[in-house]
């Protein structure tokens, strides 16, 4: 089977291996790296990660499905995750979510037809002093309001 994961993935993992006493400990870092390359963890990618670690694919899925950051379904080019936990709702996060829904024409959990945007609500991001906050792919955006959010989305390539 042709490899889906790059040489870079394998060399990064090789470098990490001596940091841990077991190979299974590499599973979370490997899933992160695999997702960074592919945007999500397809069954084929999970299988390849599992083969590298030396575990059954079901075990890789069992672990991946426990954590919210691993996408087991494809997501858009831009993955918007608006924090709606306590500190953020106190500062208007609900309004931000409905603003996103209106602007993108999708509901929470959906992806736009052009596959540019996926919208999710997120639990506490640890940015409560600068609430409301969201993640856009791997980056934090804080102290948001609808105008600031629009500016951020307008500027995306």
């Amino acid at each position: 089977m042709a490899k889906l994961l790059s040489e870079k993935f394998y060399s990064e993992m090789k470098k990490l291996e001596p940091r841990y006493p077991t190979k299974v400990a590499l599973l979370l870092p490997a899933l992160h790296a695999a997702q960074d390359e592919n945007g999500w963890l397809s069954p084929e990618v999970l299988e390849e990660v599992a083969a590298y670690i030396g575990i059954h694919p079901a075990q890789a899925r069992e672990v991946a499905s426990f954590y919210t950051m691993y996408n087991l379904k494809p997501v858009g080019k831009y993955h918007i995750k608006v924090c709606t936990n306590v500190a953020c709702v106190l500062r208007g996060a609900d309004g931000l979510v409905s603003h996103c829904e209106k602007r993108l024409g999708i509901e929470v959990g959906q992806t736009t037809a052009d596959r540019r945007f996926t919208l999710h609500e997120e639990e506490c991001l640890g940015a409560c002093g600068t609430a409301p906050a969201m993640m856009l792919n791997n980056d934090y955006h804080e102290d948001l309001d609808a105008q600031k959010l629009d500016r951020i989305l307008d500027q995306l390539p």
Partner: protein
Amino acid sequence: MIDQSQNQKMISANDGASFGVGSSGETLYVQHFKNDEARFLGYYLEKLQGYSALKYAFGMTPAAVVDEMKKSNLRGRGGAGFPTGIKWGFINDKTPFPRYLVCNADESEPGTFKDRDIMRYTPHLLIEGMVIGGFAISANVGYIYIRGEYTREAKLLQEAIDEAYEKGYLGKNILGSGFDFDLTVHRGAGAYICGEETGLLNSLEGKRGEPRVKPPFPAQAGAFGKPTIVNNVETLANVPFIVNRGGDWFSKLGRLERSGGTRLISVSGHVKKPGVYEIPAGSMTVRQIIYDLCGGLLNDRKLKAVIPGGSSAPVLTADEIDVIYDIDPLMKINSMLGSAALMVVSDEYCVVKLIHRITKFYAHESCGQCTPCREGCHWMESIIERILHGKGREQDLALLSDIADNIGGKTLCALGDAAAGPVASFVKKFKPDFEAYIRGGKHA
């Protein structure tokens, strides 16, 4: 006794203001926060006597370092408030090798964001604290388990670790001491429960982050089945200060008998100036923090509720805020300091909606191992939801209290208590607000 006059001197990390800080109101951290230079080794060496504590510690025996920690009265800053020196003392001559030191940088308790500032502004404090901790418990390997969302902070930490390796503060034979210590940043992937130390250890091992049955405790069988000490970021970052200036000095920074040092507090919600603040442990009341430090309530609204220690802490009403903001005083009034995350709620937000939001969080984050938590959290969420929608029944409040009572203390880890305590306290303290929905025809 608390000297009220000193409370005016605290520094806010939020606006970078620096007042005349007297020795009695000394801060260790906030003057370096919001400074983009502070994270580099050069700054750390110059402004924070960087890595001098490490040199000092290498001249001591590991047991003497642990003794200094005991003297410091440092209590864990992650939420449980366990005395750090006593925890380190669980590792002794008879403890088998290898041993591990793990830093809990999961910072998943809603409302908490102080550790993020330590990692992005003063990462070398954490690194030096970990090397000293490793030396004290004779562990040659350390991991920083950082929540997955903190990608930028993980990168900044890694850069600081690379600097430390390059200059010989990490790696083999550190500063010629013969002591080796390797440090690895390990990213989580989005799970509140990984802030629980045994859930964290499972996650570190590449498993689902489900908490373990205790005993054995981590000091007996932790990471990879080996003796392990797990400490919070702020806890470990305090270590270089303690070694440099002594446990007694650190202990006296605090204003209560059994709570040393300064305390980083995360303030959020309806205050004028939210942010990370640093106060001598036990030096201020909740009221002083809200009105003196944080400028009072947003839009000068009326205070409705305060969640004092992250969303797991039982709620306080506006009449209960004259309590000293520290571990023991809050415990005395049946709440908790937790991770020192203070969330302030004005009368513009409905408390029933708020407890619904909190309960939804725990229902989402319950790992599902223990029936009371897995089932109970969802039931509490559903019942509060029907109350919100005007479909609540008279007996629902008693039912909520009963479910909370059947979760609390009946689960493997503290998530059950974290979900139950808030519900029980909201129902007890804000009954009329619930009744407005149940009897008064109010609905969301």
